[in-house]
């Protein structure tokens, strides 16, 4: 049964609409650009894990990991992990 659930999860993931996939790519590019604007070494962002509203932990191509979030003052902050 757990195996079936796992397969179901994979199938569900594969059925992700192109729009959603494009949105994900857009987010990764956005996070990559934001880190670049903030002057943090990163290169392209390979993956992002959502922690909360406007809060992501990203993995960069160069191996760096950052928590990118908007603080209560409305500023974009990149914290190295």
């Amino acid at each position, binding site marked *: 049964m757990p195996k079936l659930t796992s397969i179901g999860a994979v199938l569900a*993931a594969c059925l992700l609409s192109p729009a959603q996939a494009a949105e994900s790519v857009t987010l990764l590019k956005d996070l990559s650009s934001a880190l670049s604007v903030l002057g943090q070494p990163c290169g392209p962002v390979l993956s992002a894990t959502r922690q909360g509203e406007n809060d992501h932990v990203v993995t960069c191509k160069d191996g760096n990991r950052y928590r990118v979030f908007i603080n209560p003052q409305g500023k974009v902050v990149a914290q190295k992990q």
Partner: protein
Amino acid sequence: MTAGCASLTPASHEADAHVVPAAATSSIVAAPDVDEAPATLPAVAAAKPAPAPAPKAPVAKAEAKAEPKASATGQAAPRAKAAPVEQPRAKVEAKASVAAPAVAEPAKAAAPVVVERKAEPSLNVSDLTTGLRQTNAIGAFTKLALKNQLDDLLQKFQATHQSGQQPRAAGLRQPFDALVGKVTGLLQSGDPVLARKIENSREGIWAILSDPEKFKSVT
């Protein structure tokens, strides 16, 4: 479909607990073709006039051999057209046909530059602000990061103007240029028209920011 699979593969490998589709959860992984951060300013490079054509000497030679009238007028098109008729020698004909595009190229490159200068708009800050807010070329995080930096820069200008030390405003030229460069660099691929507008407005914006009276009127 494939992008969806590719973007979620690690999540599905990591744990069996991820039952919900990844769009609803949290993990996003880049497709292999995710681009690097935007490069420098190609439009600026494109706006520069094309270098002078190097192979001018062979052209002149071919012209002299082929038809002296055409070389006197300096028009490439009629010469290329007439060359096969007047020249029985295949060697000269080949020279003329090879040389023709080299002469025609600078004329083509020069024309858009003139048009661009005519079309250069006057500074319209609200237009630029609206354009930056509405463009999809920059994501929300990046826009906010840029706005944060702009706010910081404006605070520095304000502090400089309040202290009455006018020459110090010149010291802010470098961060100003850096910020404009970042914005235009980010816009270059997704919204080149807006990038060009901002680049053209650079001096106008600087004139407002560096002048205490003008700065006061806009803030």
